[in-house]
């Protein structure tokens, strides 16, 4: 079975075409992955950016006698359905505290209803035809406007969409992360130092190593089960508290910190250890004065990345009850709190259209924090990384 040169060169061409195809397909799949990322961010931005603006209405508030018992009396009856309930609700109290205001009136920009907000942004809304007409008129007159949404950044959760904010969740996240870092950083670094610098190479050490790698791959929800059964039910740590959540997340972050610290310690060259031993340092003195300071940038980078991971984690926190409804911005390690991902999860379950926007807005805040943390870690590594 012999082939002519023509046939062979034909075959060769075919083989090269096939080879080129693999290149294009593999390039395409990397492009596809990149496309997913771009689509994802575009989708989040388009859904979430409107949440940073909020509709306000300019109206005349007349502080009459009746308004002291019924806040609705202070407003133009035509506008009332468009104004947020939270604005109306505080009028009687305000008047009771400042009786001298009764009888006066003033023009103010007040928070509009979430339906108005959604209408102005062109989303799905539930306003009637007349309300829409009245609103359009006021938009023409410049009495209704979209402004920066300070409520979103300045207040806690609320069942009223236009009044819901992310601050209590941010505070909860900070507290939880403090607990997580305080537990996982020292223990993680100590474990890594032991395994790299002190431990004899025996079966126990190997068991610890295998175990740590395993722990890194255990589904996060199982850490939640541990937190519920051991921390909450057994040790009696208050449910839903930053303490319980932080401890659970600390166990989850531990393997990340251990693994990155070990890498950092391993990259410190042995000549430094030998030199220190040579002048009579003890093992601990070598680690404390030479190896650890040199490995610190790597350790910090790894810890920040681990922390960012813990910050985005939701499942174990749901199990330990950190999906509480927290309207007040408070700071205590043992009271109920919520964290940003849990807040996002709660909002995503609300049926109102306005909450979809809030959810996406919360996601943007969370992603911004996570990306800046990771970028900070990368910068830290670039700046302090030493090539030996």
């Amino acid at each position, binding site marked *: 079975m012999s082939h002519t040169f023509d046939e062979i060169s034909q075959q060769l061409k075919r083989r090269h075409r096939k080879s080129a195809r693999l290149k294009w397909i593999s390039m395409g799949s990397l492009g596809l992955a990149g496309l997913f990322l771009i689509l994802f961010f575009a989708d989040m931005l388009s859904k979430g950016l409107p949440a940073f603006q909020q509709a306000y209405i300019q109206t005349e508030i007349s502080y009459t006698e009746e308004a002291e018992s019924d806040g609705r009396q202070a407003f133009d009856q035509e506008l009332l359905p468009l104004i947020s309930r939270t604005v109306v609700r505080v009028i009687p109290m305000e008047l009771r505290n400042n009786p001298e205001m009764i009888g006066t009136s003033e023009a103010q920009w007040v928070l509009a209803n979430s339906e108005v907000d959604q209408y102005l942004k062109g989303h799905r809304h539930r306003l009637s035809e007349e309300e829409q007409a009245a609103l359009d008129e006021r938009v023409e007159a410049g009495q209704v406007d979209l402004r920066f949404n300070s409520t979103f950044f300045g207040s806690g959760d609320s069942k009223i969409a236009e009044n819901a904010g992310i601050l209590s969740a941010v505070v909860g996240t900070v507290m939880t992360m403090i607990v997580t870092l305080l537990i996982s950083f020292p223990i993680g670094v100590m474990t890594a130092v032991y395994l790299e610098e002190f431990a004899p190479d025996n079966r126990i050490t190997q068991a610890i190593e295998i175990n740590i790698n395993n722990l890194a791959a255990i589904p996060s929800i199982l850490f939640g089960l541990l937190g519920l059964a051991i921390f909450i039910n057994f040790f009696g740590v208050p449910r839903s508290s930053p303490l319980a959540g932080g401890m659970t997340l600390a166990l989850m972050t531990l*393997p990340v910190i251990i693994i990155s610290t070990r890498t950092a310690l391993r990259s410190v060259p042995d000549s430094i250890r030998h030199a220190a031993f040579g002048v009579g340092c003890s093992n601990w003195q070598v680690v404390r004065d030479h190896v650890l300071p040199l490995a610190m940038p790597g350790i910090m980078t790894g810890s920040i990345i681990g922390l960012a991971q813990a910050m985005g984690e939701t499942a174990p926190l749901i199990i330990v009850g950190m999906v509480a409804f927290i309207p007040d911005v408070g700071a205590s390690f043992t009271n109920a709190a919520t964290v940003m991902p849990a807040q996002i999860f709660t909002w995503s379950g609300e049926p109102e259209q306005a909450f979809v926007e809030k959810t996406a807005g919360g996601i943007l805040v969370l992603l911004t924090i996570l990306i800046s943390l990771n970028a900070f870690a990368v910068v830290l590594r670039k700046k302090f990384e030493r090539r030996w």
Partner: protein
Amino acid sequence: MQTNQLLLIFCGALLLLGLLAFFAGRSKATRLRSAGTAMFAQPDQYAWFTVLSTAGPAVLVSTLGAFVLLLMGADIPTLYLLAASLVIAAIGLMVSLNQVKPDFHARQAIERVIRMVLAGAALISIFTTFGILFSIISEALRFFQMHSFWEFITGTTWNPGASFLASAGRGDGSGAEFGSVPLFAGTFMITAIAMLVAVPIGLLSAIYMSEYAPRNVRTVAKPVLEVLAGIPTVVYGFFAAITVAPIIVNIAGFFGLDASYNNAVAPGVVMGIMIIPFISSLSDDVINSVPDSMRQGSLALGMTKGETIRDVVIPAALPGIISAALLGMSRALGETMIVVMAAGMRPNLTANPLEDMTTVTVRIVAALTGDQEFESAETLSAFALGLVLFAVTLALNLVSVLMIRRFREKYRVNNL
């Protein structure tokens, strides 16, 4: 808060004793040294030694005491416990001050203590594993006392509703069925969809990055892909539920199919996107460590680049690639938020991915966030499901580790 104040006083007293120990130890050592005796350690080291032997036993005793209090339920008042620890601290101070002698190796003593503390920290990760195992198994056993294991593994109906009534005092809970097959079917369906998305894209991206891409593309593409892994799962869940699920329903509608808004495809696809970097980055490392001599040999025989990759590089890297896929799979099995937000709640045994179905992790969350009491069968069933999840992911991880070890030994690479 009585206990809080007590603890505060205890900490203050211990701090004072520690300071006292430090300065007393140092002054004694300095005095001895200035008298002209040669000493085995520096004054500061003696000082730290006294501090360690003052505070160490006291802290140890008080923590152990607290544990015993919790475990045994013994009612030793906290006051006595803390007072005893303080007494021990004082004794430690005396004894250690007595030890400050020229021929005492203070530095080695400190070294031993530090070594023990570090080893203790290393044991915490072991405790964590045992803690997970213990908490899951003990609660799961309680569940299996109420419902048979066989029924749990083979039953095809998951209907915990009646057990809720039983725990509320109505009915006897006999109608409750805990057959987990539909949950596992849902989990595997969604995992399979995720792997169908992640393995081809991840592997091909890895091939492109390691074999074709110019250096600058590689340095950009790798971290960009890693961003996919860094996005919180709750965000993916929102994306799947709000954006992807309607798209799937529309596409299915275009082909005349009827899809649920909680279909299995949306969470599956989004989960696949999430897993891409896990697979691509490990595969990339593995492909990079296939020795170049194999590529050169293949090219020298006249194989095209594509043939070399397909017939030489990939088969050589296969154990590592399988290991990456298994790791990705264990991620997908244990993933919670995406399925909680985008998949259904209804246990549904079906092969149609356009229907709504639920997963193991969804049921765990549902069982533990409801308002049943902890003793109810439904709550405990979460731990039984968790046990199965733990076993499966553990097995996958171990196989994955073995695979990568085989690869490493075959080609003698150390950086994996």
